[in-house]
């Protein structure tokens, strides 16, 4: 639970789709990420002046909110889905750009009549979207490949994150509505942001420059 004003700053690094570009932008900001690029199975890496903690992107808000990491990088999709976790969103890093969309089966117009059933890994984002557009839907939360759901009759459509659109294409699905565009964000624990102001401000400035924002 402790952030600590002493000791190195702890940065939560997302593994998965954002991993490579996160390391690139950290390199650009002068953080040594060479150890993370190896095939080490460690989760924690010590570099000069900073501890890098690697984790699933969806765990980043949890660690940062609790102060187990002082700062972190994760996708806006994760922050929107976990908007009840109060972390400070300091910077749009610009990479990892993708769209949260509502998609349905090609050539089927079932979406939109009566009660729609939507499968998604992002139930809160989906709920807010349908609520704000005045539609009633039944949301079905799934954990894995959400494209599967409409193909086998679990729901009429999906709400999911789309980067290139190839997965949708391969599964005979098409985008019906765009909900929000998501990129990687730099976030901070609110206590660390106050107590380690100079370090966090400096890192923010370097990341801003490295990400070309």
């Amino acid at each position, binding site marked *: *639970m*402790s*952030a*600590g*004003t*002493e000791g190195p700053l702890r940065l939560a690094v997302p593994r998965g789709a954002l991993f490579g570009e996160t390391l690139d932008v950290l390199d650009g900001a002068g953080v040594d990420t060479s150890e993370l690029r190896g095939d080490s199975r460690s989760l924690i890496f010590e570099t000069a002046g900073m501890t890098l903690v690697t984790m699933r992107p969806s765990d980043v808000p949890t660690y940062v*909110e*609790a*102060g*187990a990491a002082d700062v972190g990088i994760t996708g*806006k999709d994760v922050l929107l889905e976990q908007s*009840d976790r*109060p972390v*400070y*969103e*300091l*910077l*749009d890093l610009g990479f990892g750009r993708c769209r949260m969309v509502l998609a349905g089966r090609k050539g089927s117009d079932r979406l939109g009549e009566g009660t729609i059933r939507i499968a998604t890994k992002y139930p809160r984002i989906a709920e807010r979207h349908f609520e704000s557009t005045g539609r009633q839907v039944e949301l079905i939360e799934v954990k894995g490949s959400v494209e599967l759901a409409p193909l086998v009759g679990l729901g009429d459509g999906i709400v999911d994150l789309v980067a290139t659109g190839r997965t949708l294409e391969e599964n005979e699905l098409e985008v019906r509505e765009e909900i929000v565009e998501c990129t990687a*964000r730099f976030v901070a*624990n*609110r*206590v*660390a*942001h*106050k*107590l380690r*102001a100079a370090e966090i*401000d400096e890192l*923010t400035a370097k990341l801003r420059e490295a990400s070309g924002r």
Partner: protein
Amino acid sequence: MIHPIPPGTRDVLPEEMRELRALEAALIEVFEAKGYGEVATPTLEYDEVLTRGGGRSDHAAYRFFDESGELLALRSEMTVPIARLVATRYAQADPPHRVCYIAGAYRAVSPQRGEMREFLQAGVELIGAAADEGTVEVIAVLEAALDAAGLGSAVIGLGDADLYRDLLGEYGLDGATREGALERLAAHDLVGLEAELEEAGVGADQIVTCLALSQLRGGVEALEQARGYGVEAAARAADRLDDVNRALGSRTGGHRVQFDFGLMRDLSYYNGAILEVYDPAVGHALGGGGRYDGLMKRFGLDLSAAGFALYLERVHTAQIEERRRGKDGR
């Protein structure tokens, strides 16, 4: 047999209970020494009373009907019950009124988040003292309380509740646009704030100023920096904070105060100086407070007021952690 208790509640066993009681006693000793008498108010109040405070009290999570059909609620904090108490019991007495409390409060929790449904708050309320002297007195009591709890590393963030309402007004924003931007500021969502201000047609330079202000925190040099932005709202806030700073005077071992132009509290009854308490041992704020000059009026007594509340369990966690670090020689 295992008999469960609701998530977000807990049993306290003797060892921890002794520590909590010792901490409570140390805090009450400080409060009483500063002239704050301890009070207790009912855990249950009429919902109408708690709602009158606005802000978080509006969101009392637990409401039910009594045997005659009256709507009751569990208090979610102590400031509103104490405003009611003072307005009712001390209406004819000469202010200022100084009271302190250690009491349980109740809030709804999100599942599996480690949040507490029932928690203890320790705090003071100073009602009817003039603005700056009142703020300064409350800060002094808070500093003494943190000393007594042994929190050598705790810091008090001091900000201004009126800053952004003023600033956005100066930028020509009002109504829903301003509220939207204020929400972003309160959540500290700088990316969203920038987008919101752009959409509202605020100039690029003004956006940069607003973002920079929200990140401005530090010693007296921060006050100078705030004045340097050339916006009136920031200069006024810096002047108000400077007044408090001057009135604080010097203190043995220095003050714990850090000026913070990015500080926002989510309780709607605050105005003027606001504060939050941080300790490196805990990832969440230990407590907060500030001025709430409008609150007493809602209870029919037009008096200025200021106070703070500490989350006792978090203070206890910080106390243990600071002791451990002290032993490790760090």
